[in-house]
């Protein structure tokens, strides 16, 4: 199965800007460890993964029924205000995804399977 993994909030982790250099280095090491664990695990493949810039850089695009496009600044909803990054990965099942994600800093994470819509 293919999963979109959204790092939607800091959770038990101290917000990035408040972290000391050594704390940031420790968090980065966990991301590296996660990459390595995914690579080592049979049936798992990291297809994409990026950190996101701050919510003030996000733009919401809405298209009305008449085709008019309205742009507003900021994220879509407060709930994803803190979204810091994402992964797209292939994994055999939910348990494998959760097991691997335990390596990351203790963020709040949404795990969302994708569906195949290719004809």
């Amino acid at each position: 199965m293919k999963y979109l993994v959204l790092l939607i909030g800091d959770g038990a982790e101290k917000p990035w800007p408040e972290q000391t250099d050594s704390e940031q280095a420790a968090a980065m090491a966990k991301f590296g460890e996660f990459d390595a664990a995914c690579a080592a695990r049979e049936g798992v493949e990291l297809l994409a993964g990026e950190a996101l810039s701050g919510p003030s850089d996000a733009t919401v695009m809405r298209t009305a029924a008449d085709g008019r496009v309205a742009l507003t600044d900021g994220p879509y909803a407060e709930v994803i205000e803190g979204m810091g990054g994402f992964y797209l990965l292939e994994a055999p099942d939910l348990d494998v995804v959760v097991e691997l994600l335990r390596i990351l800093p203790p963020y709040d994470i949404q795990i969302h399977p994708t569906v195949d819509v290719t004809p």
Partner: protein
Amino acid sequence: MREEWGRLVALLLAQFRRLDLVEDALGDAVEAASRTWPVDGVPANPAGWLMTAARRRVVDRLRTEAVAARKQPMLLTDAERHQEGARTMADSGSLVEDDVLRLVLMCAHPALAPEAAGALSLRLVLGVPTADIARLFLVPEPTMAARITRAKKRIVGAGIPFAVPDAAVLPDRLDTVAQTAYLAFTAGYAPGTGPDLLRAELSGEAIRLARVVLGLRPDEPALVALLALMLLQHSRRDARVSDGRLVLLADQDRTRWHHDEVAEATRLLAAPCLAGPVTPLTASYVLQARIAAEHATTPSAEETRWDRIVGLYDLLLRVAPSPSARLARAVAVAEDRGAVAGLDALEGLEIPDSHRPAAVRAELLSRAGETDAARAAYDQAIAACRNDVERTFLTAQRDALG
């Protein structure tokens, strides 16, 4: 047949990985058996007969699907075949691959809502009819049928595996199984809106679920402690109600308790696996079971060792603090040290949507001779109570104040 249900579901799932087809196919096979066995005689190997019939039905459905809808996503994709490889790697090798354990762990997965996990476990592992599960959880049958269907869809959609997890997370997962079983158990004793006494009998299905898992993992502390706790609570079922009225613990006919179940629970509590360090969940089950055992092994209500029970509640509140444990402790304090001490222990305690704190306060105020305050507390409890049997009891208590 019911004993074989979980094993057959598990074997079919192991072979086909199609949760959406397996249960229907087995249901069809059972239905066919109920038609043909009375005429042709019961086959030499009934379970094997059902397995063959169900397997044939799944294969028929798969064939129809393959022909009719090439676009329809099959569960058995390349990713699924990968899963086999990944799983074998992940298993530490010390675990016996057991299809029934895989089934239990799938049904009681932490990614499912607890009540959905409970319902699904009773349905798939034990074959409890949906109508009975609906009555246990106090919802209409179509609601429960929809809930079970949704849970099955979620298992497929979210990618919840039919697998035994890594040894590192297995204890956590078995804790979830225990919590799932206990939720189903307590549902049978939850105050409902009517006097449906059979619901307590349905709680016995949760005991059966715990036994199935213990059959696979005999020394699992959480399940040993939980089984002891459930047996002790369940042993009083026949004495709890008389002529449609609730009978308090002190007034129950102790000869009607199931003493064989009490004896089994006492043996379980002495199990070596509970002697060492255990998880907080297991510790809370052990303490609740020891409290229940104090009651169950005392010959008469007058001889109850309330001092020991208060001590056990003190420990329980440290391991797993909860308003209902505080309430129960207050009752024990009142028995041990008098109504005024009990009222002190109740101070500030509230449980949303529950009539119980008010009911206990009313009883203790009445014992302390504060009749007016007691009457007001009974009124409050009666207004909040949604169970017919309990409301009748509370009304009688209030009217007896004079």
